[in-house]
Each structure stands twice: as C-alpha cells, then as structure tokens.
C-alpha cells in the first residue's frame, strides 16, 4: 500500500493542478478549513457528550440536574447566545454591503453577548463551587458537568478573542466588503459554539 503510494506520488505531482487553477478561492478555502476544524471539534464534543450519557445511564445515584443547577438563569444564557448569533449574521450582512458602522455595531453586540454569557457562567460556577461545595472531584455528575460546560466556556472565550481581533481590525478600517470571507468564517465558529450550547443545555440541564 505504502509502496504503491510512494511510486504514485511523483506521477500525481506532475499532474497536479497549478495553485492558480485550484477550484478553491481564498474565501472558500478559509470556509472549508473552518468546517473541517468544526467537524473535528464536533467529534470532541460528541465524544464527551456520549461519555456523559454512558456514565449517567450506568449510575444509580445520578441527581436530577434541576435540583442542583439553575435552569432559569441557564435559559437566559441560552437566549443570550442565540441573540449573539443573530447579531453575528447581521454583522456579516452589514460588511457585505460595506456598511462599516453597522459591522462594528453588530460585531460589538456579538462580543457583548459572549461576555454576558461568560459572566453568567462564572456566576453559576462560583455559586456551585463556593455555596454548593461542588468540585470536579465531588461526583461523576459534577465532573461531567464541569468538563462539558468548562470546555464549552473555553470555546466561548476563544470566540470572544477571535471576534475582538476582527472588531479591532474593523476599527482600523482593514475589513471591507471584499474581505467579508474573514467575517463569514469567524461567524461559522461562533454559530457552532451556539449550536453546541443548545445541545449541552438540553442534555446536561434539562434532561
């Protein structure tokens, strides 16, 4: 198998398409790259959620989540993240029309949504750790809870940093309608984080 591959490589190399003729434009290449990253990231989340499900089904003493976790405040967090997805698509829509002011406004609102989410999550964690005395070592419930929501929180934080860089570059006038692809790719990441939260909210909090 590997021999055949090494023999074939030079032939393929000669027949390779020149980079100029590649069907992938810089924009579509960025988009494809982000989708591949998201597919890999989804596997990580998927494995973590599947493991959580297996541990939960196999455990007799699993508590009812709503007796420990605050559902109303988490529902607000879910709603904030959904709203930030809407402002994100509006930011993309604005930069496509080369509406710089609109782009900055909606991107700033998206970042604010992310920060509000992180603030509420920090408040929730503080309550659980200091008042309820939960830690990652307390039980399988707390371990899976902190790992799943913590891993997702890291993604939100990463998204806030990512979008802040785009906002700063926008303020410097570097993002124009011709470069809307940068915003679109960042939006894909942001919506993915929203999508994963929708699933975590259901599996970890509601069920």
């Amino acid at each position, binding site marked *: 198998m590997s021999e055949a591959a090494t023999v074939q490589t030079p032939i393929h190399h000669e027949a390779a398409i020149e980079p100029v003729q590649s069907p992938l434009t810089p924009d579509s290449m960025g988009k494809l790259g982000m989708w591949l990253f998201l597919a890999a990231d989804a596997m990580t989340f998927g494995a973590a959620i599947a493991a959580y499900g297996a541990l939960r*089904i196999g455990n007799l003493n699993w508590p009812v989540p709503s007796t420990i976790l605050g*559902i109303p405040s988490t529902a607000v967090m879910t709603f904030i993240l959904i709203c930030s997805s809407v402002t994100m698509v509006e930011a993309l829509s604005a930069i496509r029309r080369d509406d710089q002011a609109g782009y900055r406004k909606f991107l700033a609102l998206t970042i604010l949504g992310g920060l509000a989410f992180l603030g509420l999550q920090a408040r929730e964690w503080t309550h659980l750790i200091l008042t309820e005395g939960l830690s990652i070592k307390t039980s399988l419930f707390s371990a899976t809870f902190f790992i799943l929501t913590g891993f997702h929180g890291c993604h939100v934080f990463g998204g806030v940093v990512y979008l802040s860089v785009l906002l700063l570059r926008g303020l410097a006038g570097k993002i124009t309608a011709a470069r809307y692809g940068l915003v679109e790719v960042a939006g894909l990441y942001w919506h993915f984080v929203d*999508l994963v939260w929708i699933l975590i909210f259901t599996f970890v909090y509601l069920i």
Partner: protein
Amino acid sequence: MAVSPSMAHGHVEPNYIAIWIYLAVLTVLELIVAYAPIPKAAMVGLLVGLAWAKAALVAMYFMHLRFERRTLAIIALTPVMLVTFLTFMLVPDLSTRIYARHHMGEVVKMEHALSKDVSGPNPNVNP
C-alpha cells in the same frame, strides 16, 4: 473584482429575525416540556427532538448550510454520523452496567461469600 463562487452561492439571505423567533419559541417549548408532568421517556424524546431542531436551524440558516454546496453539508454531517456510531458502540458497556444494576444484590452477596474476611462492612454496599 471577480465574483467568487462562494459569494454567488451565499448571497441568498434568509430572514434571520424569523429564525431568531423560531429558536426563542423552541427554547420556551423546551422549558415547558422540561417542567411538564409527563413520563420521563416522552420528556427525553421531546427534548432531544427539540434540541436537534434548534441545532438544525442554526446550522442551516446561520451557518448557511442550506445555501452551500453539498460537500460542506457532508462534512458537517460526518461527525454527527460518527458520534451516532460511537454512542451505539457504548451499548455493550451500558447493557452490562444496567444488568449489574438489576442484579446488584446478588453480585454483592457473591462478593461477600467469596471474600474470606466477612467481618468488616462491604464497601460495595450502598448505605
């Protein structure tokens, strides 16, 4: 500047506010289902269905999968399929756990009988 294929494809703009309202309504429905006095199995089924409906709305309209080439949809569905397989691969483990749960009393008795020192409390017994 030449119009790139992705631009030509992605220029359809869905009504984002409508999607936002759908997502908000589905979230409220989820909360209603979560607190409704219905059997656990029905509740879990409904909640999972509602969550996937919301996830599909986000992927199709916010992430524009509906207006993209099919290749991207295939890339996006790959982890969904793989995670489904992964979940089914956990079934043997789950079934042994559930079996052990149902027969816990017998297992504990057997362990008790097998161990030579039966004087101390069995750590496997839940108080």
